């Protein structure tokens, strides 16, 4: 099956062996989008790889930026100012909304509900992308985070618009849930399909909503408390069955929690600087660091080895999408071929990140 057009789930191929309509073997094939991002980054300065991180998972450039900035900030100890921390949280949660809302759209698209739900999802996404454009200058390739803060402050009135969008979002979610969550077709096509057991999920290093759908409440925002996430009150939704429906519902619920975080952050955000005291030339001492955050797709980590030059000696991205694909075969075995599409959709992959 595949490779598909990049605008669906990306250029991804599955070698599927079938017995009638039942999947008996499945091998994912990667690499169509491989550009050796890690090798490129080893040949340029630390800052210059920042725009390339946007292009890993092109839905969530803000969180990618944050993971990289977090790792690099460990190399040289920079304090991030208060306002920048709040803005980071706001941007990350907006990104989570963008990702989950478009994922749900794509997911029901895979189920056969062509168009309408996806367009509703994209309508809401568009409003958030407008916010991103006003803050960073670009809708998707934001390149907004810097080591020690953010590139620039948000323009005047931006926070009010963000509040407006945040307040309006739950109404849309209500409507969306009414449309999808009790839909008979969706229930029968997702419940009990592609079950992932708790043990396998942990062993296979599955992270993000997929792990939580399998019943493990492991969220780096709670566990690592990076940034200022310890100041916000939010819950971590998790599923029981680990099937496609749980994965879908966990994302729906996570959006509600994101809105809670957004509301708190937008209410508390202080005035002040947005850039910490960063050295003009970024030249860290020899060290090895691993920074990770809870991206919308799972744990996004950056492993950096500095050797005292302005270029990283080793630069490694831990891509959540790739590692979540480890269990694709296990989930698809014994299911119908049409369900394999749904299972792939529920994993939530972006091939820019899988192949790097």
């Amino acid at each position, binding site marked *: 099956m595949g490779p598909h057009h990049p605008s669906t789930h990306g250029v991804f191929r599955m070698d599927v062996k079938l017995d009638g309509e039942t999947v008996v073997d499945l091998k994912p094939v990667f690499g169509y989008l491989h550009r050796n991002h890690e090798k490129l980054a080893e040949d340029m300065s630390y*800052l210059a790889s920042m*725009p390339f991180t946007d292009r890993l998972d092109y839905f969530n450039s803000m969180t990618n930026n944050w993971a990289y900035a977090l790792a690099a900030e460990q190399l040289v100890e920079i304090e991030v100012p208060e306002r920048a921390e709040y803005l980071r949280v706001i941007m990350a949660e907006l990104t989570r909304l963008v990702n989950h809302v478009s994922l749900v759209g794509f997911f029901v698209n895979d189920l056969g509900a062509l168009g309408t739900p996806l367009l509703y999802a994209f309508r809401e996404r568009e409003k958030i992308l407008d916010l991103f454009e006003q803050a960073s*200058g670009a809708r998707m390739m934001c*390149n907004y985070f810097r080591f020690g803060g953010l590139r620039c402050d948000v323009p005047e*009135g931006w926070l009010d*618009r963000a509040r407006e969008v945040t307040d309006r979002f739950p109404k849309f979610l209500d409507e969306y849930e009414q449309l999808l969550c009790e839909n008979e077709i969706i229930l029968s096509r997702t419940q009990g399909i592609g079950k992932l057991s708790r043990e396998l999920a942990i062993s296979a290093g599955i992270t993000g909503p997929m792990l939580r759908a399998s019943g493990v409440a492991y969220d780096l925002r709670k566990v690592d408390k990076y940034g200022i996430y310890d100041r916000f009150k939010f819950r971590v939704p998790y599923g029981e069955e680990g099937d496609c429906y749980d994965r879908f519902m966990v994302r729906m619920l996570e959006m509600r929690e994101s809105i809670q975080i957004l509301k708190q952050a937008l209410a508390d955000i202080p005035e002040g600087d947005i850039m910490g005291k960063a050295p003009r030339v970024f030249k860290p001492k020899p060290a090895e660091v691993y920074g990770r955050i809870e991206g919308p797709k799972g744990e996004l980590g950056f492993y950096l080895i500095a050797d005292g030059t302005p270029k990283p000696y080793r630069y490694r991205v831990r891509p959540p999408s790739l590692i979540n694909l480890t269990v694709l075969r296990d989930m698809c075995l014994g299911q119908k071929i049409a369900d394999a599409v749904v299972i792939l959709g529920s994993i939530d992959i972006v091939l820019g990140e899988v192949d790097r």
Partner: protein
Amino acid sequence: MVTLRNFVGSYFDSNRLTTNDYSWKPKDQLPQSAGEYPKEEGEQLSDTTTVTNYSRNFPMLLHDGGDDPMDTIRCVACQICERECPPQCIYIEKAYDENGKYIKSPAKFDIDVSVCMSCQICVEVCPFDAIVMNSQFELSTPDRFGGLLLRRDDLLKSNDYYHQIHPEEAAARDQKMADEKAAKEAKKKAAAEAAKKKAEEKAKAEAEAKALEEAGEKGKEEDSGKEEAS
């Protein structure tokens, strides 16, 4: 049911439409209509439907106005942006006058927009505020290679144009430049004052030394006079 509500709602509520949200824009800045596209040939307006005054597309070089833009070009061809550019799409050659002296301006400044990824790193690293982002996006050309290589003269834009497309950012940048200039002048002034003070002190010290010397000589003379007298 939801679909029906959305469909009917889309006639009354702009939030139910999939098009852009302009609710935050002042009334007079709203685009008149989106139906005029394409506009007259060569004409590019910054209010074409999707462009807000925060968007960025490709870099441009700034000059401060005047008849010949090369006289007031801010770029000094220091090549920092060329080094830092992540996809390596900038190409600079320094300009030399007839004596082979470097005259602090670029002879060549090419940006390959087919490679450029609009990341704005060049804008950030530039110490002279010479390169900023343009929001012009209608760059289609029948010539795949030559047409997408912007030369120095294509990139040169006046500061007024920058004010027109990104008013807030441009004002902030001008303010920053003025501050820096003022700081520099203040520093210069301080340095000059310090030098003056130093010179004064030096003169004073010299005068004192001279006086001392003179006194010493006088003393000597007196001594010698005494000696003579004795």
